[in-house]
């Protein structure tokens, strides 16, 4: 049995097209007030490139490949971790109850904004 994935030609184009549409529609619903966290959040999402970096590094067979692969994982990890850290920090601020930790109960936080300080 062979379970290996083979994506080629038009299948790849289908994936790209559908993902592009999904991204466009999903992002289009994000209000302007959240555009900075959105940008760093989508920045975080492309940090998935670190997975490709790990694949490349594990398959490296020369010193040059190892060096570049190491570089790829290093940068990809930085992209992912940094993107997450800043996005999480920013989003935590949009919560109005100040004593609440970053994402505990965040989905529940219905009592949004105290109107007056």
């Amino acid at each position, binding site marked *: 049995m062979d379970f290996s994935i083979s994506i080629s030609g038009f299948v790849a184009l289908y994936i790209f097209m559908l993902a592009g549409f999904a991204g466009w529609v999903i*992002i289009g619903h994000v209000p302007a007030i959240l555009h900075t966290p959105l940008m760093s959040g989508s920045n975080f999402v492309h940090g*998935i490139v670190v997975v490709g970096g790990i694949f490349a590094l594990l398959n490296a*067979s020369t010193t040059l490949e*190892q060096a570049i692969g190491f570089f790829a994982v290093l940068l990809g*990890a930085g992209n992912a971790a940094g993107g997450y850290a*800043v996005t999480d920090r920013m989003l935590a601020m949009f919560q109005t109850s100040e004593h609440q930790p*970053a994402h505990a109960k965040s989905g529940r936080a219905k009592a949004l904004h105290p109107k007056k300080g």
Partner: protein
Amino acid sequence: MLTIIPQLLIGAADLAAAFLFLYGLKRMSSPVTAPSGIFVAGLGMVVAILASFLYAFDVTTEARPFLATNIGLAFVALVVGGGAAWWSGRKVAMTAMPQMVALYNGMGGGAAGAIAAVELFGGKSQGATQLIVTLAGALIGAVSLSGSLIAWGKLDGVINKPLRFKGQQLVNGLVFMATLVVGGYLVFAVEAGAAPLIATPDLIYLFFALALVFGILMTLPIGGADMPVVISVYNAFTGLAVGLEGFVLQNPALMIAGMVVGAAGLLLTLLMAKAMNRSVSNILFTNFGAVTKQKQGDIKGSLKPAAAGDAGIFMRYVKEVIIVPGYGLAVAQGQQKLYEFVKLLQSADVTVKFAIHRVAGRMPGQMDVLLAEAGVPYDLIFQLDDINDEFANADVALVIGANDVVNPAARTDKSSPIFGMPILNADKAKKVFVVKRGEGKGYAGIQNAPFYGDNCDMVYGDAQAVLIKMIEAVRSLGLSAAA
């Protein structure tokens, strides 16, 4: 030969990651659900990274002797790269956020470029399609890396002036063409069987060097006011590069995540460009801000300075105040004091609203984040389209550290570099206070006619210091009233 179990696990983990990313981004459509959204996406990332170590079961025969070292290297790279970025992301000031985002984005582009480099140097690309896609990803990733680094330098103040010279477009165009020619030659030579890919390292070096140089050249002439657009363009670029390398590595999770970000970056770029009433190509390829026409002669009236305390007291006795915050507020770290002042006004039954221009700050929506940092509830914050008609009814427009986004030259003066840009109608308010450090001009380098208007007073000083004085003035008022 990869055993079936790890293969299935990797497939399942990547599928889960792709789902969690999409679901996480979907939750960003409201400030209420957004924090859980990024958490969900983070879970997806952890799952995908852990699963990716299962690739160790199926490395190529040549790579087998190096496997232990490579796994070790991967761990070190993850810990060092991830740790350093996490630490810096946790401690960076909110005002410095744009340059951090640019930096992380450049890292992603660099990672995509590096993956392409491993594929190219190892001669692993098979067939023309794969080679072309690898090269395209390499080009876009490399441009994103060097371009983002320049953007970081500009936002961080390391690079102060836009670098412009005669014939710049031509030079940039030539460098870009040269990159394409080298890439095209590589494809041609390899496909014609003239040389295997692995025998052409010099050409590969040249290709990357040209791409990196192009990224630098392309970003250097762009002025600081256009940085929000630039950041968002490079975000889209990196996404695209990641998506393309995902195709090369046959990894659908990378393809989907990369393409989603590519689309997101494109959408944000178009929104920003629209907010400035300029085309994206106009922003990227023409020299905004180079035109510093002095039209001072046309402006009548004079700048009238006012004391901060008087302005504060004035606002205490009106019905409605609309605040237009700009980057000057952020630089002065005045958000906290501003909200304190706002709370004082609110307790005196003054209606206070915030009007935010989409390009206020150094990246899309940055002003919203800075106000959120100070604790301003987001139902007080309005975007241009929602509040612009209300200025005419407002008693006071308080402009803090913003210049260009309230400059009516955009409405009338065809020669102005910001002509056509939608602006906040602060000048239509009955009274305008402008808090500003000095008589200097805004980012676009143009004079601001309404500052000379009859209804406008200038409050000079650092935004934070001014706000402290306003707070004190209003407080002392309250005390004497109570006494």
